[in-house]
């Protein structure tokens, strides 16, 4: 994009000669903000319609996506995607049950003190 020298936007004007440095920095910042805004606006308006294809987009492609997603196979697809997860949950539950304590629960301290009586002679000597 180019402008004729006399037709430039005011924000592109060079600062007057002898202007303080602070004024020049402010001008430059405004210029870069203006350019960034212009670039964003161009990008947004230049997006082809096909790109706005999200399932909640109001576009032709978005409607096609919704139709394919919630078509007659929706429940089959949903069940297919969900199916491994209850099995994972069941296996984890099984692991928890398999390693669950059985029998009377002896407090750890008590058991440790009892076990200390069962030490081998070598262990007793070292203790």
């Amino acid at each position, binding site marked *: 994009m180019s402008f004729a020298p006399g037709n430039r936007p005011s924000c592109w004007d060079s600062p007057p000669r002898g202007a303080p440095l602070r004024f020049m920095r402010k001008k430059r910042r405004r210029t870069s903000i203006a350019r960034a805004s212009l670039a964003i606006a161009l990008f947004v308006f230049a997006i082809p319609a096909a790109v706005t294809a999200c399932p909640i987009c109001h576009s032709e492609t978005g409607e096609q996506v919704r139709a394919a997603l919630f078509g007659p196979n929706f429940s089959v697809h949903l069940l297919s*995607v969900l199916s491994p997860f209850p099995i*994972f949950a069941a296996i984890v539950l099984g692991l*928890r*049950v398999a*390693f*669950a304590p059985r029998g009377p629960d002896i407090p*750890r301290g008590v058991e440790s003190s009892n076990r200390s009586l069962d030490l081998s002679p070598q262990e007793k000597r070292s203790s």
Partner: protein
Amino acid sequence: MKDLNGTNRGPLISASALLGIGLGGFVDGILFHQILQLHNMLSAKLPPTSLVNVEVNMVWDGLFHALTWVMTATGLGMLWHAMGQRDVPHSTRTFLGGLVLGWGLFNFVEGIIDHAILGIHHVVENGNHVLWDGVFLASGVAMIAIGAFFIRSDSTQEFRAGEAATARR
């Protein structure tokens, strides 16, 4: 099964296995679905050859990731709860064993259900998918075996040794 030393490893093993399932699911989803794009959730039924099919697969991938996130978050919650229990040992070996076991369980169960039974996708859609599906299943079995070995070896040797040391003190 309460260990001989009076500790209860059930909560630690189940929590770490659930975390492993979730993390294994994320590896699958991030590496195979997104970075390498070898397959998507329904890529065997809806080949990602058009924008609409890519978008539909993306939605199902998202649902899969959401459920994987739920698994991971639940595993974290269970781990937090387990660490608060006095009889649950803080064993790194058992924890790592559970993580590897969980990852292997993910590969094995997902491989059996999604790849073999339902056939909604394969590890590699183009080419010899039977071979790669087999490799995926074998990796699951191997990881289950490694995880189980870690867990078992902890209970039979180091665990008792650690308890003997505790008893000596």
